[in-house]
């Protein structure tokens, strides 16, 4: 072992590089690492918040959907009620209209029948008179026998 000035030179070199390391090497990289750590931590926090707000939003959406569904079924129920009501009204109206038309048709038919009867009666009377004329071979005095004729007419 021969200790000599080499030791001093090495010690000086050592301190120079400690200084270099402390001043120029260590701080910048540590700063970079710490900045990255902070960024990652912030990112994780943001992700957590995002997850939370997503949960919130989906819960709100679920609520809105449930509400809408309830409202829709309400509307459908109302509509159904209204529809059946309308159908009922329409039925009633149709029935009334039918009855009315039926009655009108009946009365018309009756009128027609009575008119036909009247015509028939007149014609039959005319025929009867014509037949009687032919049987009697002479002219019947329509005026003289008007009462008889109307009598016959009534009997027909």
């Amino acid at each position, binding site marked *: 072992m021969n200790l000599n000035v*080499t030791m001093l030179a090495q010690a000086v070199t050592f301190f120079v590089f400690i200084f270099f390391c402390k001043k120029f090497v260590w701080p910048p990289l*540590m*700063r*970079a690492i710490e900045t990255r750590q902070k960024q990652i931590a912030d990112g994780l926090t943001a992700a957590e918040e995002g997850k939370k707000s997503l949960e919130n939003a989906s819960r709100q959406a679920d609520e809105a959907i449930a509400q809408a569904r309830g409202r829709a079924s309400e509307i459908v129920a109302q509509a159904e009620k209204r529809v059946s009501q309308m159908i009922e009204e329409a039925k009633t109206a149709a029935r009334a209209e039918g009855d009315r038309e039926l009655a009108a048709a009946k009365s018309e038919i009756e009128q027609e029948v009575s008119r036909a009867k009247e015509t028939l009666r007149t014609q039959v009377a005319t025929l009867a008179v014509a037949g009687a004329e032919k049987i009697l071979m002479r002219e019947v005095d329509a005026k003289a026998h008007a009462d008889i004729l109307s009598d016959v007419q009534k009997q027909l």
Partner: protein
Amino acid sequence: MAAAGQELNPTSYISHHLTNRTVSLGEGPFWTLHLDTWLTAVFLAVVGFGFLWWIVRGATAGVPNKRQAFVEMLFDFVDDQVKGIFHGNRAFVAPLALTVFVWVLLMNAMDFIPVDLAALVSSHVLQQHEWKPVPTSDVNTTFALALSVWGLMIFYNLKVKGIGGWTHELFCTPFGAWFFPLNFLFNLVEYISKPLSHSLRLYGNIYAGEIIFMLLWMWAATGLVGSLFGGVLALGWAIFHILIVALQAYIFMMLTIVYMSMAHESH
């Protein structure tokens, strides 16, 4: 290789490779500078910390590239070790630990270069026939590091505890004020043994590793069989030596952190 004309025997081979290139800076043996130790150490430090500086200057807080990720792993490893032992502001101790670890690791790793290959480079490129390439197998380096750490320890003892507090600690711990001579003796031994064990542990491990390498390389020079077995054994030793190199750098760093921590905390 040994200088031309010299006979190749174990003693000459080993002593040749363990001789430092010296420069005399003044009168007396103390002013001898081991040029090889110092220049290799400075070169390794410049390369190592220059690399780190280059990466760190372009460091991004975003997605790091692979180089930066590697350096970040290294920093994180050192920072974790410091965090585990040293409780306080790491602004000085962590860079100190990084410097110690990287520098000692690089200097130890010079052991992996076969001595004759290193000698080839030093003799042809640097025109130096004597060049010991492993700075940590020079006791000057390990003492320089250990004594620097020791000086920092004394400095922080005084700075944190004050001269009164430190004196009190020296005389009153660990056995209490009544045993102050025993305490002082105890602490004295501790303070003397710290730099000794700190430096000699590293020096001994690396020096021994180097000697074993040299024996194997010498065997490798004796013929075909020697080359074969010497090569295989040297490979095995080199693989095992990776552990020693890294472990000694790690231990040196850990002890540095421990001493700094002890200086900052009162018993």
